[in-house]
């Protein structure tokens, strides 16, 4: 669903951030699983800007982002055979790994920071409105941006604080000052609404 078949576009072209930018990611990943390094190079070109961008967005630190992005991409190579096309698209599989790794790094850093400075909630980060503005302001993909706007404010904040900032739902609950169960349900409702909007193919 995230991928649209763009038949006929040669996949050696530099990927442009536009909807359905990953023709052949499934095919490439299948070749990668068979140890095809050349296919991996092409898959790299297809996904690396989003992997790096996502990791950097979550971590904020370019040097760390580069390190984690490298771990992610090597992980893609290493575990390519575990990708199951029945469970989702190849790009989604890659970004799931990337997001998980980035968040794991954030949590490890936070744990370390909390050991050193007994940081309270205030240490979690920037005020959410600033974050939300920044995230929305920098979104390059029209459709995703449009669809985020369709969410209610709390849904949008819950989703973006978790996804782009790597906050856990208890942290999001603190930041937004809404109860835990509300945060949990807003995250899910937000994703469902996002899905409906994205699958409706609404252009901004």
């Amino acid at each position, binding site marked *: 669903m995230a991928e649209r078949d763009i038949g006929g576009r040669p996949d050696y072209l530099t990927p442009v951030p536009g909807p359905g930018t990953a023709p052949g990611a499934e095919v490439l990943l299948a070749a990668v699983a068979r140890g095809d390094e050349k296919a991996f190079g092409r898959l790299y070109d297809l996904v*690396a800007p989003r992997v*790096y961008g996502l990791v950097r967005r979550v971590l904020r630190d370019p040097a760390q982002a580069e390190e984690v992005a490298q771990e992610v991409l090597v992980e893609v*190579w290493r575990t390519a055979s575990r990708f199951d096309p029945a469970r989702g698209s190849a790009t989604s599989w890659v970004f799931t790994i990337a997001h998980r790794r980035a968040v794991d790094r954030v949590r490890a850093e936070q744990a370390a920071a909390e050991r050193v400075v007994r940081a309270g909630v205030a240490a979690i980060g920037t005020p959410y409105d600033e974050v939300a503005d920044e995230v929305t302001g920098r979104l390059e993909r029209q459709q995703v941006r449009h669809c985020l706007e369709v969410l209610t404010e709390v849904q949008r904040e819950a989703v973006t604080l978790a996804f782009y900032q790597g906050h856990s739902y208890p942290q999001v609950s603190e930041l937004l000052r809404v109860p835990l169960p509300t945060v949990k349900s807003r995250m899910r409702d937000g*994703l469902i609404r996002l899905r409906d909007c994205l699958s409706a193919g609404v252009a901004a």
Partner: protein
Amino acid sequence: MTPDVHALLGAYVLDAVDDIERAAFDRHLRECEVCRMETDELREVAARLADGAWSAPPPRLRENVLAEIAGTRQLAPSAPAPARRRSPGRLRLLAAAAVVVAAVGAGAAVWTIQDQRVRDARQLAALAGQREARVRSILSAPDVQVRAERLTSGGRVTVASSRLRDAGVIMLAADGAPGPGRVYQLWTIRAGTPASAGALGEGQSTAVQVVDGMPGASDVGVTVEPAPGSATPTTPLDAVVNLT
């Protein structure tokens, strides 16, 4: 573990859960095919958010990655998961179990997932289509009454009952399966007499069971019984849902 692990679905997809919750949810997913489907679907949605984070990596990243993979051994494909066995006459676990529970709790949102082009739905539909339609027809009945109680052992049992359909659905979402050799068993109680509405398999903690003639019953009970279930309850009720 959180009482309703299923409520974590969104947070899980967004990696906003801690390691313990993640493990609990992974366990939940192994038992619930439709939850897996919804998770896969929402993960696909979350991945689209990466579109908004596009940023050109430093050129050396490519060289470094390609150099590293040249010396990195790849994992062999994993063996396919063994198919789950079902025994006839035993309460069949609808794959939709926890999703239905959530549908009752969280409104109709979940059903839209089923209605939409779910890629994996074909498999599941073949498996559970008829039963699912039945469950859906009961849950969507205009006179449906929904009642829920907590299990003493942790978790929740929800009963939806409709006179119009002359049927009901029992949805069990326990926090965990009972110990080895023991199973959850569902009962309908009519005029003080319990009748088995089915027993779960060992190791199972979620179930959706359609019961014909449910509105005639006064209560629905849950017990933990020696596997594979008992003719009459042999243990105190773990939960009782009054229907009157």
